[in-house]
């Protein structure tokens, strides 16, 4: 049985790959997420990378504990850093964040998305030096579990 963190990351990947956004998204989870620049070509689908970052544990009642899992979703594609190039990708980032909050239940995990925060609308360094759009969404997923 995989760790709950892994289950949640996998469920997020499935959710992103099954959803319909304003442009195609290809999601994957990764422990060592380094995308090669050629893989982010403007002719390919937008890459979404799901990375597990943290887990918190707190009592939520006499016999209930609350686990909050934090993950990051990176959105990337090569594009010119202009209104025409980046605006559609900023829109996509908002669509992904909204989608995760609008449909919070993550099937098969017992978890619910309680927060999706866009940490970086775009990274100026990537825009300037790599002509690449990179945005980051931090997602918090809460799971309640019984206490022995």
């Amino acid at each position, binding site marked *: 049985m995989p760790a709950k963190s892994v289950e949640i990351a996998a469920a997020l990947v499935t959710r992103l790959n099954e959803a319909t956004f304003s442009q195609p998204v290809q999601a994957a989870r990764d422990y060592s997420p380094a*995308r090669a620049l*050629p893989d982010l070509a403007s002719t390919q689908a937008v890459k979404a990378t799901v990375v597990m970052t943290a887990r918190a544990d707190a009592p939520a009642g006499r016999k209930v504990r609350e686990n909050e899992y934090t993950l*990051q979703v990176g959105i*990337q594609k090569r594009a010119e850093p202009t209104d025409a190039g980046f605006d559609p990708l900023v829109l996509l980032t908002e669509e992904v964040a909204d989608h995760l909050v609008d449909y919070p239940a993550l099937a098969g995990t017992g978890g619910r998305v309680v927060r999706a925060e866009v940490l*970086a609308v775009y*990274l100026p360094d990537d825009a300037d*030096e790599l002509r690449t759009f990179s945005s980051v969404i931090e997602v918090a997923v809460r799971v309640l579990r019984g206490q022995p």
Partner: protein
Amino acid sequence: MGDLFEAGATWLAGQLKQHASQEVTYSRGGDSVVLRATAGPQPLRLTGQYGAVTVEWSNTDWVIPAADLVIGGQQVTPQPGDTIRRVMGGVVYVFEVLAPRGEPVWRHSDAHRAMIRVHTKQVGVE
């Protein structure tokens, strides 16, 4: 008496082109020119502010005789978005003219402006 250093730079440019260069195709939009260029080392780099959006890429600098960069009948200087294609082992590697952060995309490579150094990053294979 002529400038020995200028003569030396010209000689060196010729030697570099003749003995230490590869044939590449330099393109801008729909126009291109086949010329000989010398590639520098290709150090691998990683961005790293957030783990989820790490990008792996390599810089490649090309040294080109300034007089050979002729597109559409005119001698030009590199611009962002221009591409250089080099065939290695039957694979075409595509490099895009992109500057390191805060730097111009090209500069003269010698005091006499015989050679130019163009900054690129590999962006694809064909």
